């Protein structure tokens, strides 16, 4: 193969990389409405917060984040959602480490982290977001639930 063809191939690979990156930027973190209308069972989730087992949902809404230890972007999402919880009283935020709890990942069909579920006051899954959530989308969903 001559140098021209080589450049064309390398250029195409470069273009593919940029296309994937741009598509990812655009689509990731938008989320979708959850149609299963499943209620989360906190006694099965067994998640602690500040050393205490969580047994009640937030008054208006609960944000459930699923993380793993190998997830580079989870700590950032954890910080921003904690901030949100700090500002709004009717909102509970919990973070579930599923590195060793693949049963949970299978049950909720989670294939990437972070994944964030937005629950209503009764613990029903209303919305799910894979990837780093876009802030405006979280806000809009929380407003619908009357949590902001």
């Amino acid at each position, binding site marked *: *193969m*001559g*140098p021209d*063809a*080589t*450049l064309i*191939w*390398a250029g195409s*690979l*470069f273009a*593919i*990389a940029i296309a*994937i*990156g741009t598509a*990812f*930027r655009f689509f990731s973190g938008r989320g979708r409405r959850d149609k299963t209308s499943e209620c989360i069972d906190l006694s099965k989730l067994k998640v602690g917060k500040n050393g205490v087992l969580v047994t009640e949902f937030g008054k208006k809404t609960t944000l459930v984040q699923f993380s*793993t*230890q*190998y*997830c*580079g*972007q989870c*700590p*950032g999402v954890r*910080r921003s959602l904690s901030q949100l919880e700090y500002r709004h009283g009717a909102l509970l935020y919990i973070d579930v480490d*599923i*590195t*060793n709890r*693949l049963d949970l*990942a*299978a049950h909720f069909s*989670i*294939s*990437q*982290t972070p994944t964030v579920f937005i629950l209503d006051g009764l613990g029903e899954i209303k919305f799910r977001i894979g990837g780093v959530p876009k802030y405006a989308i979280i806000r809009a969903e929380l407003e619908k639930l009357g949590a902001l």
Partner: protein
Amino acid sequence: MTELKRIDPRGPRFGAAITSVFAIIAFGFSLDTWVYAWLIMWVLFALFALSVFGKNITHPYSYLFQKFVRPRLSAPAELEDSRPPHFAQQVGLSFAVFGVISGFFWPLGVTIAAAFIFLAAFLNAFFGLCLGCQMYLGLRRIGLLRQ
């Protein structure tokens, strides 16, 4: 659990940028004079292996970053857990091993490995997207990875 190492998140991305340059050059050569591509693949293999196994050895990337890049940047907004980038290096190493081995009898394998390493490193460096970390849960769930 051992003490967590926290690192400047821009370090791994700087390294990924260099890796992506190596990888796309290797990809280009692999279509032409592929022996050069194979040589670059050995270099990438050595670099990945060093960051996966060389616990107390200063990696050339981190030397460059600390010596020339870090002093020109402002303080990091936040430090990051070192496990996700470390996992990403392991994924990179497995691609480099594939490329190095297939170079003995199947030159196309070198092209494939170079393409994947380029994609992963480029997306990590310029879009902040860590493919290996994204796939971690999926790989665990279909049983390709263990703890």
